[in-house]
């Protein structure tokens, strides 16, 4: 298939791996963070890290949209799903994310009308089909998904669908990256920038990383050769003392992003002063809420939402995994008490979660020799 096969060529992959080997200094350890959960998934699905020298370490970042939703937010969703007459809709991954007293899937088993949807448009369709019910869409995701929610709210307004509303839990990628860069826990040499988020926001928002923190960034696609080429770009910058944002994913990511998407997001959303991230705590201006212009479609204003903060379970180390401080297999409950079938932490729930990627592709431990 076009845009796929040419980015999975094994011979080119081996050539890129050779180039990576030629760029690393023996004795130096390189830590490169892939921001996006989609990259983490591709790295282990295609065995990209097996092609890297042992002194090039890939560190997994906070870019899985399901993983970062805090327990209190899940509890809020469950509370809304129990409101009289409500049909609560959400993406499939969110159904299994644990709240303090179970998941949305558990609430569904208890009788709440909770339905899995593929897109916000599906939720709007359910609202049209059920005019005597209130349909709430649990919106999650980074800038990649937020435009879809924004367009759906505009469509609801244009079609005068009054029984539809949205519980907005969209987040933005730059504030957590800045928080990670300010963290004393982590020393990073560069970033593989998030390809799909960059499709919307463009390359410009990442320029603070080289400018303020002196780290190279290569925005990358999701095929194995995309990721290998991005690593080459980062190592080449380090080898030649350059530091900038490079765009490996030019076939999809324009420098200025998707201007129409940014406009529709600016119309429908506004930044929250603070938003809580699972494992990372409250981060300023990192979450989106529905703007006053669309307040009538905001489920948090239409219904009473508890909004109680709930601490993560003590056994779960999702926070450290999301910050790249530990590898999934270093978590105390990884693969034992916490599995994809019975997850304790969000990183084991989502297909983009680092723990799920490690578990599904058999990375139960990893010892590598430094070249």
């Amino acid at each position, binding site marked *: 298939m076009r*845009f796929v096969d040419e980015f999975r060529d094994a011979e080119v992959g081996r050539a890129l791996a050779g180039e990576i080997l030629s760029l690393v200094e023996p004795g130096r350890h390189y830590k490169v963070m892939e921001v996006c959960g989609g990259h983490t998934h591709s790295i282990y699905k295609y065995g990209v890290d097996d092609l890297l020298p042992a002194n090039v370490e890939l560190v997994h970042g906070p870019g899985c949209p399901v993983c970062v939703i805090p327990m209190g937010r899940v509890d809020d969703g469950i509370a809304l799903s129990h409101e009289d007459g409500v049909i609560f809709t959400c993406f499939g991954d969110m159904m299994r994310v644990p709240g303090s007293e179970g998941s949305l899937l558990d609430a569904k088993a208890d009788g709440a009308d909770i339905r899995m949807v593929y*897109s916000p448009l599906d939720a709007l369709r359910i609202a049209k089909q059920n005019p005597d019910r209130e349909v709430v869409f649990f919106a999650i995701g980074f800038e990649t998904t937020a*435009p*879809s*929610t924004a367009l759906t709210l505009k469509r609801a307004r244009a079609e005068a669908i009054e029984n539809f509303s949205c519980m907005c839990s969209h987040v933005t990628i730059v504030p957590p990256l800045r928080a990670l860069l300010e963290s004393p826990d982590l020393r990073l040499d560069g970033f593989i920038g998030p390809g*799909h988020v960059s499709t919307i926001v463009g390359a410009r928002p990442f320029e603070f990383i080289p400018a303020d923190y002196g780290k190279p960034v290569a925005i990358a696609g999701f095929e194995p050769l995309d990721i290998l080429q991005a690593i080459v770009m980062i190592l080449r910058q380090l080898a030649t003392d350059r530091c900038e944002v490079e765009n490996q994913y030019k*076939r*999809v990511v324009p420098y200025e992003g998707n201007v129409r998407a940014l406009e*529709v997001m600016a119309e429908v959303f506004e930044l929250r002063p603070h938003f809580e991230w699972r494992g990372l705590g409250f981060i300023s201006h990192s979450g989106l809420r529905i703007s006053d212009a669309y307040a009538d479609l905001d489920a948090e204003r239409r219904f009473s939402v508890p909004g109680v903060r709930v601490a993560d379970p003590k056994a779960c180390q999702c926070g450290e995994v999301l910050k790249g401080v530990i590898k999934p297999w270093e978590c105390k409950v990884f693969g034992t008490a916490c599995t994809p079938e019975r997850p304790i932490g969000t990183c084991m729930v989502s297909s983009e979660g680092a723990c799920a990627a490690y578990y599904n592709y058999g990375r139960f431990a990893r010892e590598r020799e430094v070249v």
Partner: protein
Amino acid sequence: MTVLKLDPQRSLALCVSEDGRRISVETALVDPVDVGEVLLVHAGTAIAHGGAG
């Protein structure tokens, strides 16, 4: 996803994924779109032209 059929008035396209799944896709962010074109789709909305990966 590859575009099979267009409904330009409603900014919708019928698309097929790599594994043969067919869905309706919102195209307002990337219009104009042509039949046979590959779109990058997230949550039922096309966010870019080209690049399935």
